[in-house]
């Protein structure tokens, strides 16, 4: 089982852009005006998870 990757709940995301600005891997982008993580680039550092003001990002182990 791999490390958990950041995953954005698009229903909760209010598109503030905070996660994009702190991601050390430039792994998060706007897709349809919501933040979306490129799990191939994600290094599981969880900085975006802690930064999200509304708790819209969580760690998810990909199958």
């Amino acid at each position, binding site marked *: 089982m791999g490390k958990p990757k950041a995953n954005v709940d698009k229903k909760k995301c*209010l*598109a*503030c*852009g*905070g996660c*994009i*600005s*702190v*991601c*050390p891997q*430039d792994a998060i*982008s*706007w897709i349809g*005006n919501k933040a979306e993580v490129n799990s191939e680039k994600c290094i599981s550092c969880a*900085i975006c*998870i*802690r*930064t*999200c*003001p*509304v*708790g819209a*990002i*969580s760690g998810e182990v990909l199958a």
Partner: protein
Amino acid sequence: MKYDVVIVGSGPAGSVTARFASEGGAKVLVIERRAEVGVPVLCGEGISRKIDAWKIIEGKRWIAGKMDGARIYSPDKTCVTLSAEQAGNETGYVVYRDIFDQELARSAIKAGATFMMNTQATGIIKDADKIKGVRAKRFDEEIEIQADIVVGADGVESKIGQWGGINTRLDPKDLETCAQYTLTNIDVNDAYCDFYLGKEIAPGGYIWVFPKGKNVANVGIGILASLSEAGMAKKLLDDFIAKDPRMKNSSPIRFIAGAVPVANPVETVRNNLILIGDAARHVDPITGGGLTHCLEGGKIAGEVLAKAVKAKDFSQDFLSEYETRWKEAFGQKIKRNYLVKELMLDMDDKTFNKLANALKDVKFDEISTHGLVKEVAKHLPISTKLNALIKHRKEIKEIKKK
């Protein structure tokens, strides 16, 4: 599609740049990923009244209220008041940012700029190493926009900087993560902006109450991302509202999240590219305010871009006039206030309470962070001053030199 200048982002910095570049004769396109300029609002909506003298925004529809002053509450609720009456000068406005942004966009369009909505930049077009424009997705269609100059006005999350070779990635200690309700039926009627400090209330930041008219206010929080946990900003704000008797019968009509850079500015110029506004980190690191810099910096950027188009010179060297001029206008202030932010992070609640006690009867002759910082410096405990001197000697020296 070929333009002299393509601006990515239709916020205040983008629109003001578009206007002054257009007035100077440049052919300008502004692209915006969202469907409406200024919507959703991502802002506490406070601005200094010094913008009155600049005459960059027309009309009055964007004004929600004129402020009479500010009150800053320390962790034990000691209140420091900065009133316009005492200082004999103007303080600020609370604005409707959606209307504010749309007025600025209207002025840009009147000057000749073209706006394109629902258009998300997806990359920079390069020929060898030379920047030639941006790639974008307009609804579902992939388009290429050729331009001599690309302007990153794409906010705190700027990608234009990254794509153009400027590292805009923020350290979590240089980002305020924010949440805000617009509350109605709130028992707030005077025209004062209130700020609440404290490690328990808002670690590395503050809670604000900005009245937007009778019984309506923006109630928001910013906390430092390095001190945050998932969803913490919203939770602390909810706790504050639940405990505040003025908000007992209130109800929200808007909920937003935000992210504010509280960093040292980045390099803003490359060949065929500049960064402006939040993308350039043109934000006061103490207050998190950036609107005045967007207007001031946007005007400078627009004027320099128009000159570049006339001279057909889009080199970093030519465009660096923009960087020189914004540094003169507010670069030094941001650097100084960044240092003050760092010092404040080292201070505990007890020190804030002591300071508030020393300042609570002071009559401020200047309502600004500068005026406040000057007074605070006078009353700081010697130990705090010494610590600051030891820890930040190099930066203090550098600022004093200039």
